[in-house]
């Protein structure tokens, strides 16, 4: 059990570290129409639906924590939001079949839109910016699309990572197909 725990810690810390650096220092230069992909959301979602709710929660909390350190206001907001993203994605882990990429894509897109709507609702709508159509078409949907495209590149490496962390679990064909 101890080996399991350390592998999990390394996996989570490593992915959060690399994704954060990519998101803020690399991808922010290659924004499409000023939108950059939300890589930490991909990390939280993938840990969730590949390894279950517990992993998703902790990975999500770490993702949110890193964002909070560098955002400088409402410290704790991102931690809670991403933790729940990880948790809810983990609910779908029993439906996760390794080679079927449709469910993960839908989950990531859905999570991105949900997070976008929550942030819009709290920080924009309640301040009087009630034109949701504008924010949907200019921020939420482009970010979801860009994030989903990048998640395709994340998918197989993450599958390998999840197999490595959870080696004893995945041995044997429990799922057919």
């Amino acid at each position, binding site marked *: 059990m101890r080996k399991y725990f350390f592998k999990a810690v390394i996996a989570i810390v490593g992915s959060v570290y690399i994704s954060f650096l990519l998101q803020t220092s690399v991808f922010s230069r290659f924004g499409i129409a000023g939108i950059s992909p939300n890589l930490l959301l991909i990390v939280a979602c993938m840990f969730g639906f590949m390894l279950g709710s517990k992993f998703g929660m902790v990975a999500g909390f770490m993702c949110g924590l890193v964002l909070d350190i560098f955002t400088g206001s409402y410290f704790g907001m991102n931690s809670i939001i991403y933790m729940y993203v990880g948790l809810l994605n983990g609910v779908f882990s029993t439906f996760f079949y390794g080679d079927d990429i449709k469910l993960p894509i839908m989950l990531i897109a859905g999570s991105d839109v949900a997070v976008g709507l929550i942030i819009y609702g709290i920080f924009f709508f309640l301040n009087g910016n009630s034109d949701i159509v504008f*924010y949907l078409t200019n921020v939420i949907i482009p970010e979801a699309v860009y994030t989903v495209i990048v998640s395709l590149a994340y998918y197989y490496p993450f599958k390998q990572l999840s197999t490595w962390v959870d080696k004893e679990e995945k041995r044997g064909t429990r799922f057919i197909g």
Partner: protein
Amino acid sequence: MNRRNSKSQIPGNFILITLTIIGVVLLFVNYALGFNGGPLKTVANYVFVPMQRGLDFVGSSISSGNEDAKSRAELLKENEELRAENDELTTRVTNLQLQQTELDDLLTLFELQSTYSEYDSVGAHVVAKGTSNWFSTFTIDKGTADGIKEDMNVIAGSGLVGIVTSAGTHYSTVRSIIDDTSNVSAMVLDTDDICIVSGSLRLMTESNMISIESLEDADNSVNVGATIVTSNISDKYLPGLLIGYVDSLEESSGGLTKTGTMTPVVDFKHLKNVLVIKETKETQDQ
């Protein structure tokens, strides 16, 4: 069947409740005490920022190859024009310096403090842009070790960029004035009319502008193109910092004040180097 539960002894619900409580407590502590990470900032400092600086260096080396694709002839012509402008500006500066000395003498005679004195500042690079697409914050590579503290103003070129929201040892996060949560107390330079400049993600995306609110302009003396600077009555921003130029004005629904849009003078899409003014409004008032 469900072997997952037998692996780890800690039940999932316990983790959920614990982390939710931690998250909510952090929010409250942030609200009540302005806690912004404390010891976690040290982690960020030594773990993330060095990599960010390295990546920023690599990234700017790659992208500078794309941007500077002007032809040699264009560059030479631009060089000529810049030299001529440089000479003209040097003459003007010298004249202004002479006037400034005279002004200082007169002010000392009247025993007044010079309002727009030279501020002590430190330069910094932008190493990481924005943690999300909704807000406009960025990270710079100087921190408390270089004398930077919270609430210091940040400028670039000649215009106001934002304000420092938190400072680690070797990094700081800055919130831009175009961020939706940013409100700067400002005034029209020519007429001294007070207004509030607020950032807006929507206006910036649509037309690269930010909004002016609560402009008191009873005699309609403010025109399009008027210069907007930070006001004397702001409690976070030093006075006289250039923000931008008025683009449009109209009566607000109440009829008592005006609202409008303005173009910020700084190009927020291509921020690389900024200047942090080491004097905060608080210490200046003392």
